[in-house]
């Protein structure tokens, strides 16, 4: 066989399945034990890593996009809201990290939808493995993307003059909490990814949810100046609690009530949307 054959061309003249080679393959009856839930999820996570390797452009939305958002809001609102961009950044950074990461979670649902549309999940669903592995594994791959986005924003923030009083440990704890919430939150988009017909409709549904949820919160401004009805919404918005908790951790005075609130909403999201997603996955 030459090594010069152009991509896409077959060399059928060279190939004919010989009973010997095929026979050797088929004679094997050594079936390994089925992989553990963890091993199966890890294999799917590896698949996500391979996709990043083959389609590196998809890293754009977890690197360049968060940087743009951070710069944009810091300089757009900084002077007006806090006197200087640097001052404002001390308030904004935890919230903008939350916003960026949550906006990216939508891609998880789009990825799931593409897998369904292309029939890739069909083969996975005929394998005798832990049922949620394909979804959990894909999400673990995305968690690495979320982590990258959060790290990039923090580094950009520090370069612009953000000085977290909680230090390295506080920042790591805050990012950990944000990622945990994003993991649970992503199941909403996984569910829609399994439910809706196209990637476009997943995006179409996520935007009107994500924008109000992230903007009608305490990410950009202190809710005290808002009208009462809006304050009421902001108060119950889980994003507000996540931002308050992350701010606390980064500032070195983590509020245990807020953190509990966040972990509680993670559990609710996981139970509700994880269950719905698995139901859809099994019924497809």
């Amino acid at each position: 066989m030459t090594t010069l054959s152009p991509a896409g061309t077959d060399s059928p003249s060279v190939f004919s399945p010989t009973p010997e080679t095929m026979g050797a393959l088929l004679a094997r009856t050594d079936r390994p034990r089925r992989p553990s839930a963890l091993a199966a999820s890890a294999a799917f996570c590896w698949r996500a890593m391979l996709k990043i390797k083959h389609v590196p452009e998809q890293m754009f939305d977890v690197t360049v996009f968060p940087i743009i958002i951070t710069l944009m809001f810091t300089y757009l609102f900084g002077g007006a809201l806090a006197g200087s961009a640097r001052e404002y950044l001390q308030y904004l950074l935890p919230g903008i990290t939350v916003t960026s990461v949550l906006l990216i979670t939508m891609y998880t649902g789009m990825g799931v939808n593409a897998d369904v549309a292309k029939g890739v999940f069909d083969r996975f669903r005929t394998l005798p493995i832990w049922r949620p592995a394909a979804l959990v594994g894909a999400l673990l791959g995305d968690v690495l993307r979320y982590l990258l986005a959060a790290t990039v924003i923090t580094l950009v923030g520090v370069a612009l003059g953000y000085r977290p009083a909680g230090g390295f440990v506080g920042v790591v704890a805050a990012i950990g909490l944000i990622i945990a919430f994003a993991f649970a939150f992503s199941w909403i988009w996984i569910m829609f990814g399994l439910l809706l017909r196209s990637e476009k409709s997943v995006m179409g549904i996520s935007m009107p949810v994500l924008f109000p949820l992230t903007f009608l919160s305490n990410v950009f401004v202190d809710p005290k100046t808002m009208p009462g009805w809006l304050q009421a919404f902001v108060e119950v918005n889980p994003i507000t609690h996540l931002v308050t908790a992350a701010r606390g951790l980064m500032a070195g005075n983590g509020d245990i009530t807020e953190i509990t609130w966040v972990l509680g909403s993670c559990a609710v999201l996981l139970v509700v949307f994880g269950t719905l997603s698995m139901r859809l996955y099994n019924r497809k």
Partner: protein
Amino acid sequence: MAGTSTAPAIEASGLIKLFGKNRAVDGLDLRVPAGTVYGVLGPNGAGKTTTVRMLATLTRPNGGQATVFGQDVVREADAVRSRVSLTGQYASVDEDLTGQENLVLLARLLGHRKSAARARADELLEAFGLTEAAGRQVKNYSGGMRRRLDIGASILNTPDLLFLDEPTTGLDPRSRNQVWDIVRTIVAHGTTVLLTTQYLDEADRLADRIAVIDHGRVIAEGTPGELKSSVGAGTVHLRLRDPDQRAKARHVLTSMLGAAVHPESDPTTLVARITVAGDDAATEQAARVLGELAVAGITVDNFSVGQPSLDEVFLALTDRTTGTQEVAA
């Protein structure tokens, strides 16, 4: 191997699958003995894919029941999954990954350790003539290569039952032959194969038994020979030199073969269904038709005897179920 149990590979009774008001599968019965190749033949929309998906645990039936090697496809889905593989109608390999990565991933999901998974993948790529393409993304594969990879993925662990949903649709004759060779080798090793197809020819070559389905029901079942003889041995296609002689030729054919003669839109052609069963008898009957036409002074430019096509099997079978409508050719 399949020999470990005496239960049939597949036993389905009264299977039903609804999509809204559409009865995609509507009371389907199937019995596939272990160790055989079973062909499911039907036109577009007959319910072939839906049936296969239910049997392979991908879709839950709305009614009826099915077992694979004695295990229920709904209640014991996981046990069924460990014995079956499915190569779907549309390739279910990951386009973004390379051929090798696809196989390594699936091997790991089947429980092979990293190095064993790699070795198994390489062996398969070699056996399927894909070694050279192993490092290329699947989106750059030809249709035939993709099919081979997809079938290869299905035998990473030798399955007891392999579903192949229209394995050769869209392939050129050479790739089609390769797939047939692969299927034969797999069967020779004791794997039961259920394949769906739209081509009678394909079912004829590969299958021990065939079920013809339409509107989600089995409308005929039997060996390829039984099916063909139930339809007649095939058709005679005639092209006359002189269109004016067509009426006369039609008369000759009708008197010899009965009513099954159809004038085509082309004024020089005629198609008639052969009415005797068996290849030899059919050839003899066709020869006698030719002789009789010559005696009648009709000049025939072209004369051919065709195997009954799926169309013909189909038309004949639906004829039977809906009464005796005259079939327009």
